[in-house]
């Protein structure tokens, strides 16, 4: 098992408009990217379980070959910057992805 953070070059989150947060997992090595895809360690179902959210909250889940990247986007519970929102930019929601175990 290897942590996703050891395999990916970039793991980040950021607003995609005011109602969504998008997550990018970017690899520099295409072979590793393909292995991670094949391992099924990062799928919409896994994200749903890891974040404890219904799959309907995942707006997009894309395996992006030109960028060697996995990208998914979730709907916010309330628009960015509403009172009580703790992450106006959506920039710190990626942390749980770092420790995903990948069987490679």
């Amino acid at each position: 098992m290897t942590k996703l953070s050891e395999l990916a070059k970039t793991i980040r989150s950021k607003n995609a408009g005011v109602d969504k947060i998008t997550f990018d997992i970017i690899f520099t090595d295409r072979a590793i990217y393909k292995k991670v895809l094949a391992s099924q360690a990062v799928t919409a179902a896994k994200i749903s379980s890891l974040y404890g959210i219904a799959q309907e909250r995942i707006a997009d889940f894309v395996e992006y070959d030109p960028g060697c990247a996995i990208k998914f986007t979730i709907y916010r519970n309330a628009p960015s910057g509403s009172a009580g929102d703790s992450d106006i930019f959506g920039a710190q929601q990626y942390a749980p992805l770092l420790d995903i175990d990948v069987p490679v």
Partner: protein
Amino acid sequence: MSLVRIICPNGHLGFAPLKIDSFLRGVDANPDFIAADSGSDDIGPVPLGSDTSTSPEVWQRQDLEAMLLAARRIGVPMIIGSSGDTGTNSRVDRYVAMIKELAAKHSLAPFKLGYFYSEVSKERVRQAIGSSEPVLGLDGRESLSEKELDATDRIVAMAGVHPFRQLLEEDCDVIIGGRSSDCAIFAAAALHRGAAEADAYYLGKVLECASFCAEPYGAKETVLGAIDDGGVTVTAMHPDQRCTIASVAGHAMYERSNPYDEFVAGGRLDMRDCHYTQIDPRTTRVTGQRFEPAKRVRVKLEGSGKVGERFVGLASVRDPYTIANIDAVIAWAKAQVVERFGADGYELHFNIFGKNGVMGDMEPVKTPAHELCIVVQGVAPTVEMAEELCMTGTRQLFYARLPEVKGTAGGVAFVLDEVLKASPAYRWTVNHTLAVDDPLELFPTHTLTVGA
């Protein structure tokens, strides 16, 4: 031979200052345009709703000065979109005033300044709500209702390339834009030089955040984009940065739901078949992009409405028994607020850092940290009520009654024995699109001559 070359020194002009060394390298490369975006909805609904900037004026002025002096020195147009973080009319006026002041300060030779507004009246939007073409919601929102419109204080429309092209056709040397699609600022310049739409919009897409499309990570550095022979190239100007296949392709994903589509007023950039080639260590070339014009022009609207006045309080906890029972502590404080103010007519929020503070319900780590910081927000119709509401919610954390707590002299630690007046609370009320017959309708343009 390039059809057009554009440098971008900053991904959000004003939010943090540009880095001058790579900017001057970019200027020395003799671009045809110097352009930057100055706004974002990332900053939350407060600046738009309250018609303020989130950026210090000194930083805005510094970047405008660097860009204006360079553009006039090499004789190329300078283009700014989404002026002053939100692109409201007051922010456009402020940037126009700064350009005039900077021209006088440096005794610049006369030049033509063009600017356009992008605020939309609520009445214009109301007409559409009742028409055969409703104001359609984005990102899962329903069509705009009159109730949500009534709750809105200010609306800006997001310009596509149209007002920028109009002002370029009028030979403007400096363009100050209202709210704009980031990529349209650059695409307009490329289209003005005869580029194909697909290349123009991709160029805009890759340049909009300046060095975010380069590696290693380092923001606010200049990048240079060009169009030649049906392709787009992008080159890092900082000597230690490179635009690589990974960094450029990776940037195509940045801040959008999926990596393939970029929607603007007037169409959609399709990046599904983009092909990336490294042509020198600092430059990547992109081909294969497509552009699909829209059958009907729909303009994105952003609107923000005031929720109430706001105060913020801070409290911290170290006692492990109190931490284990923090929900009871919060419940006590809330109950005291209800006793004083009733159950509604205000908002009270507790963000508990150390226990799901950043991620809320999405946090997979269920064990709290050994110390917690609680940020309390009280939002109410008046300043007086918001202050007392927040004070009650914060101070009653101190008096929470836990049956077995050993420390009975005070349940939390205070960094400040007061609550702080914050910006009023706003919320995004409008994230919708409005159909228009004339793509210039919402973006009236103006020109004037500036300088000696």
